[in-house]
Each structure stands twice: as C-alpha cells, then as structure tokens.
C-alpha cells in the first residue's frame, strides 16, 4: 500500500555509487557504476567491473532498485537545486538490462535528470525504451578500425557504429566521447570518425577523453597485470591537435584537462 511507487524486486550489481560527481553531466550528480562489461579494453580504468573477484573494497555489491533509489535520494535536494542528476556508468550499464530499467523508471518518475555513459555494445531492441528516458547519453567510440578494435577491446565495433546511428534518432542528446592515447590514436582514426559522422549526418558534440593511469592501483589490488606502458596520457598539444581536426571539419569539440 505504501510502497506503490517502486517496483523494488529487481536486483543488480553495483560497483560504486559516487556522490558529488561534477564531470559526468550538468550540475551536481551521483554516478552509479554498474558492474559488468562486454568489452575488455586494454587501457580500462575500471577493471574491477569486468569479472567476479573477491577483493573486498572493489567488490560489486548486490543491491535492489529500492536500495539504490534510497541512497541516491539522500542527495536529491542537491541534484535538483543545481540542475544535476544521475549518471549511469560502468562497466557497461546496459548489460544489467532489467536492473537499469528499474532504476531509470524510478528516477524518471522522481523528476531527476539522467545521463548514461555507454560503450555502445547492446541490443537496441531490448534497451531502446529505457534509453529514451535519458536526458543525455555519453557514447564511447574507442577505435574506428575494426581489427584494431577486436584486438584491443575484445569485440568487433560494427554494432557499436550501428547503435550510434540508431541512438542519435532516439531523442536524448548524444555526446560522442573519444578516448585519446598518445602515440596510439593517430590522425587517421579521428579523420575516420569525422567522416563516419558526416556520412550519417550526425552533428554530434565531441568530447575528448584524455587517457589516464589513475586505475593502476585497482589492477594492483586485484593482483592482475597493469595495462601496457605503451599506453600514455596525451600531451596538451596532442589534445589541441585532435580538437583542431574536428573543429576544421565543423564539429564542436571540447576536452577536460587532466
């Protein structure tokens, strides 16, 4: 009788709930990191979300929709007062389809702004309804070259490209996020991205994501090997070069300095 708002049975694995999150969308936000990812990028900063392990401080918690909602609502006053909200991140949030749907339904009804950070590998038919309720989607495109994508991320990027085209027609604002690794992502990669966007008439905003090594400690804690040192954070000059490529092609492009 009293809990009529919340269909609370659905449970899922949450690796972290981060309050006072300032860089994952407008205003003050709470970022919910859901465990599990279909990719296995060599440079990943959140390896703890890949697989089941027993390192206590990094171990995902099994929580119900109701439990997550309750925790997040403690911050709702700040969200609403600053125009902020919730950001779903991961791992890959769409992997826990029902759980995400439960959360999104609740937060939508509560009037909270919602953003999603996604790697783009999901079944659009299954998650489209949920994604439509987002206000903002940050969409990662790691590599344009498919063999390279398979080699470095463990999966083909064909569906990721298709989903980007479909998602752009769905309704929520889409921002394309491109990781930049020094001496790894060359100009040809970024030109290919620009051409792909133009071919499909997608005037997306682009946000460059400078690679960082802040996740190394997690690799140590998990007792697994750190990412190869051939991956390096980009210099400011490199970021400006990449930005210039997109600006020349007529795209709005920004990056956050590390």
């Amino acid at each position: 009788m009293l809990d009529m708002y919340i269909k609370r049975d659905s449970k899922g694995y949450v690796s972290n709930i981060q309050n006072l999150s300032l860089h994952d969308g407008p205003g003050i936000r709470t970022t919910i990191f859901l465990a599990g990812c279909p990719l296995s990028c060599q440079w990943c900063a959140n390896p703890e979300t890949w697989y089941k392990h027993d390192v206590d401080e990094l171990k995902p918690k099994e929580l119900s929709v109701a439990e997550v909602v309750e925790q997040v609502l403690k911050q709702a006053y700040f969200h609403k007062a600053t125009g902020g909200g919730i950001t779903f991140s991961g791992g890959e949030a769409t992997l826990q389809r029902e759980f995400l749907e439960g959360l999104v339904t609740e937060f939508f009804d509560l009037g909270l702004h919602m953003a999603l950070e996604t790697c783009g590998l999901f079944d659009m038919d299954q998650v489209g309804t949920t994604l439509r309720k987002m206000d903002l989607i940050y969409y990662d495109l790691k590599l344009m070259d498919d063999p390279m994508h398979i080699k470095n991320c463990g999966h083909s990027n064909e569906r990721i490209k298709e989903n980007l085209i479909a998602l752009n027609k769905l309704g929520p604002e889409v921002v394309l996020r491109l990781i930049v690794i020094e001496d790894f992502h060359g100009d040809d990669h970024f030109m290919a991205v620009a051409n792909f966007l133009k071919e499909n008439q997608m005037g997306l905003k682009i946000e460059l994501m400078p690679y960082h090594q802040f996740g190394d400690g997690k690799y140590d804690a998990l007792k697994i090997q750190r990412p190869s040192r051939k991956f390096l954070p980009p210099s400011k000059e490199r970021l400006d070069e990449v930005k210039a490529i997109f600006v020349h092609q007529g795209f709005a492009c920004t990056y956050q300095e590390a």
Partner: protein
Amino acid sequence: MVSERIEGIRQAYINTKPTISTKRAEIWTASHKETESEVTALRRAKAFKKVCQALPVAIFSGELIVGASGEFRRSGILTPEFSWTWVNREMSDFENRKQDPYVITEDQMALLRNEIFPYWEHQSLEEHFLKRLPEDTFKILVDTGIIDNDSKWRQAVGEITPDYQDVLFAKGFKGILEEARTYLATCDPANSVDQEKSIFYQSVIETSEGIIELSKRYAKEAQILGESAESELEKATYLRISNICQRVPENPPETFYEAIQFVWFVQLGGILSENPLALNLGRFDQYMYPYYKKDLEAGLITPDFALELIEALWLKLSEWVWTISANTADFFAGYNQFQNLTVGGRMRNGEDGTNDITLMCLEATKAIKTHQPGLSVRIHPKSSEKFVMKVMELVKEGTGFPAIHSDVAGSQMLLRTGYDPEDARDWSNCGCVVPHFRKTGQWTAAVNVNFGSALEYALNRGMSRLNGEQYGITKISMSEYQTYESIEEAFKEELGHLIRHSVIGTIAAQKCHMEMVPRPFLSSCVDGCMTKGRDLSQGGAHYNVGPVLTGIGIGVVANALAVIKKLVFEDRVTTLQALDDAMNANWDGYDDLRKLAMSVPKYGNDETYVDEIAIRLSNFYYRETAKHKDVFGSSFNSAFMGISNYIPAGKIVGATPCGRKATEPLSEGVSPFVGSDTKTPLAAMKSAAKLNHDVHTGGTLLNLRLSKQMLETPRNRADFGQVLQSYFAMGAFHVQFNVIDTETLRAAQLNPENYKDLLVRVAGYSTQFVNLSKEVQEAIIARHVHQTGQ
C-alpha cells in the same frame, strides 16, 4: 482501496442529513437551573458532567469508533449559553436554507422556544458582549463586514489543540483527576488565590469524572449489543469496542486502537462542552506512531487495519455538525468544523519525523475524501521524496487537500512569538493555516479586517460608497490629494483606525469570556492550566499568545494604489476626479478608463511596480497590529489567511481603482486577485514570497489554480514537489492547489474574464486556457475527459 466496512460507514455518513439534536441544550439548561447560586466555572463543569451522564448513547451500525454528540448519526448541537437569538430567528428556515441546511422538527422548535431559550434571555455571551461594546466600535464591528469577530461571541472560540503527548496519553483522565484532587488538597481557603484555584480544580474533577462516565456508558452499550449480535464477527467487534471504552480515556492507551478511540472521546468532550470551531488534532502522526509501531511489532495490528481505523476517525470527525447561522455558513460553507490535523515535518530534535502513520493519513484522505480533518502537511528540505510525492498525489485528487506548509517558516513564526526552540519546531496548525503549538491559549482568528473598506474610506471622505454611511476618519475627498504618498498615508490611517476598533472588540470579548464561559474540560487537556490552577479563558495555558487580526484584500489594495500611482501621478493620463467618478458609477460608462486601469501591473505577476506596494502595506500592517496588547499583555498578531472571508468582505466594498466592480470578492490571503495573475503560478509564488511571511505570525495563505493534467504523471508531480521546495526556500509559508476539472474548464469557456490565470498543458508546453482557440480548448477538454476517465 476502501474496505467494505469503511465503505459501509461512509455510505451511511453520505446519506444521512445533518440533524439538530436538542439533547445537549436540554440537559445543559436543566443543570444550570439546579446550580443557580454557584460559581460559573463549577456550573459549567457540572452541566458538562450531566450531559455525559444523560446524553443518549448512540452506537451506529458497523462503527469501529464510537461516541456521538446526539441521538443522530450527524447531530448538530446547540449552545444557547453563547448565543440563542440567531437560532430563534432562523430555525424555522434551517431545512430550506441554501447553504448547510439542517433537519429540525416542529416539536424541537417548540421545546427550544418555550423551555430552553427563555432561560438564557439576557444571560448569553452574545447579549453581554453587545451591551459592553462602545457605540462607535459597535457601529463598525457588528454584522457589517468591515471588521468582524462574530465567531468570538456567537460561538465558543475553540482554537485549542489537546496535548496528547504530554498530558492526555501520559495521564489518562484518571491521572488528571488524581492530580486535580492532589492540588485541591494543598489549596488553603484562607488564601484568596488558592480559593480561585480550588474552584478550577473542583471543576476539572467534575469534567474528568464526566468524560470517564460517558465512556463507561458506551462500554456497557457495546457489551449489550455484542451479547445480542447475530454473527460472531459482529459480536467480537462490539466486545472489543466495549473493552476499549472500559479502559480509555480513563487510563493511558496501550494500543493503537485504544489511542484512536481516546482521541475521539476527547474530541467529543470538546464538542459537548462548547461546540467549538477549530478543535485541532495536532501532530497526529507523531503521537500515534509509537502505538502503531508497538502493535505492529507485537503482531497486534496490520497496516490495513490501522488504515481502517484512521479512516473511521476521519468519518467521525466529519459526522458531527458545527451548527452555525446562515450568515456564518457563507463564510464557512460546507459544514466545515476546521479540525486541523498536521502531519510530516521535523521532530522536536530537528530530525525528520515522517513515519508510516504520516503516509497513512494522506492515504486515508485520498481514499475516503471526507471534508474532515483539515489535513495539513509540513514540508522541509529534509522531507523524503516519497512523502512529497504522496502529498502531490493527494493534491492531484482535486479536493484542495492537503494544505501545504513550510516547516521552517512555521517555526520562524513561533520563534518570533516567543516560543522555545523545541516547541517552535513542534508546531501544528490551528483551524486553517495558523501555526500553533499545543500548550497555547490563543484566539487565532480574532477579527477579520477588511483592507478594501480602509481603502474605500481613504478615497471617499470616510464613507461607504455603497450605503453612504460614515465609518472612517478621512475628511477630504479623493480629488483633493496632491501626491500619491499622501493617499498611501491616508489608507494607513484608515487601516490603523480599523485595527484599533478590532482591538477594542477583542478585549471586550476576552473580558466576557473570562467572566462567563470558563472551559474546564478543555483546560484539563492543555498543559499549564493544572499547574497554574487557572482556566484557559483566564490565561491558564503554558503560553498565552496574542489574538490574530486577519487582513483581507491586500492584493486588491496594492493593485488599486498602483493604478492611482501610475495613471494619475506618473503617466498623467487620468485624474483623481475621473477615477472617483468612475468608481461612483461602478465603472458604467468608463470602459476605456477601466481598460487602462486593468493594464497597470497587477500583484501576482512578479512585477516589482505593484509588489513593492504590497510589501510596504503588509509590513505596516504587522507593525501597527503588534503595537496593541490583549488582556494578558500579549501583542496582537497579523495574518493574511481565511478560506472564504474575501467573498463576503467584497460584498460591502464599492468599485475599486484596479478595475474591480462593486461587491465583487476581494483577494484571498496573500493570493492574487482572481484571474489577475496572468503569467504562471510560479510568478504568483514569486510575488507572494516577497512579503515577509515570518512576521505575519497568524499565518499566510496562497491559493493557486492548477489543471489536473499538469499533475498527471509521477514526473509532473515530482517537479511540482520541487516547486514547493523552491517557494518555501524563498521564505513563504503556505500554498494550496485548487486542481481544476472539466467542469471548471467549461466555466472558463463561458466566463474567460474570471479564468485568465488558468494554465493548461497543450503539447509539451503550457499556456493560458482562455487564450486558446475554441477548437484547441475542446481538444484539451476531450483529452482531459479521456485522461481522467470522467
């Protein structure tokens, strides 16, 4: 879902006509005939006890909570000791009057006319009060609508919140009785103060014995009904009721069921003792929750049964009828008894006190839609989203409930009146929107002060435009003013004059109450009276707070002054003489000038030009009011509240420069003049929040219209929940949403002039309904019908 049992009671309530019961008046009068040489307080206490002993015990089919004020399911009782003349005048018309009719028989009328009323001739509060009043005050105070306090001499004051937390549930009436006996034993009759006190304690002994006896009579009747019951279930129900009435209110309650029956017996005692307005239930969720929690943990109650009991109490609160004159019924239409019940908000320690009972109270009002209790909620930044959502869900029902208040503003008002911080956090509403605390004696609605009249007298040589009578003090005519400022000053002087006579009338009424109508039963329910040995009417309560003067029509007056300032003194497009002529002609033949007047900024649109006048006048009002002191030495308080008083107040005011025509309603509380807030409810909130709510310690009221479809989805409701938080963050105290249905949309099509503020959602945006084409209006109505399933 409403249970079958509750629906049965609800149907019986809906299908029963309010009926006059003369029993209480008969017993009361007979008792007074037997006690003529005794002290007033004791006479009233003994009469109360006699009523408890002799009133018919009435248990109606299917009831879960028992106790009635007369032999009928919906009894209205009479209190000739306050006033009988209006009943004598009006009773033959009771059944046929348009607003709030009552059933009354020829036999009852004969009994009243021949046996009861003659005894009270020259003895009633009303007659004494009117004799005591100075002539010049009489002229503007009595039945004029200029300043009005008839609820303080034609009725009991009520305006009490029994203290369940620290007095009633803690002690039970047995405990109160023993306490009174103990105090009495220490009184020394050779000491004059003690002699006074001993009268008080004796009267409390009488009333406590009375209410206990009444409950025992109900216990016995329930037992008899149980023994002859046909089904086992019925039998068990009656015997359970019997056991409960055997224990409470004599003893402190031990279960949720006992506690709720206790509450109703206290309410019933209050009704029988004086037929009060605004006998409030206070913070029901706070004092009931411990019993619910304990029962739930012990497996003695289910949430569903607790909800049923709450709904049964709501029906009891709605069933008894507050008997009032036809004139008063215009002010308080709909058999409204103003039994306020406040839920939500912070606890005494500052933490959020929302609990399961809070949500059940909202659920009960939503499910059975009774007009009582007057459900109020307190919201603060720490309120749970679930609670706020539940509030907005109830708002969507369109019943006007709940009244929504800022928890923080309420506390600020109490702090200003001198309460301790813990007590200031523990407030609940009195009547409609007066922030109040249970250990208090206060006249929370002492006088209604008509701002429209004060303006009229300032602009019309102190005279009414409608009847030409002299009520004000202004000597000059409108065209003689040389500056805008001098007009505002003249208004303030007229307002000060009305305040002064309001104070005179209040003090005279307070004196009469002290001498004639002590309230021993209710005094035993309020902290302070026992330790002081003093009745509520003598200032016995722990806190004595000054009476509240309610200002009516600040919106209209601000609008009117803005028109004069702009059109006459700034733009110079018209003259004072022309405006004066237009108002005397009720705007007939002045269409162009009226159009011009209507185009000047109106209060309620977030326009500084006019809002700053409202701020200035409201600040003046509280300072001027606070200058005066009542019989206990407490400062008077200002307020802008009242549910329907702006309608009769408007009837005596001629045309005003804002474009309003003669006798049209004024503006309500701090609300904009109806239809003149043409922007959005948000702009209206911005204007209202510019006033300093914290100093108007008698409460402020904002009423806004909202179309139902704006609250359709949970997300819509969440957004409006945030609108509430924003309004309260600006310092405002109260808002109530009038949610609009199809019928109102139809009315708006017919009279667009009166519905300019009505906002509807069209397609991804919202706009004024009256500005839409007929086709779109029809489409919206059709969609509305579809969406609400009407």
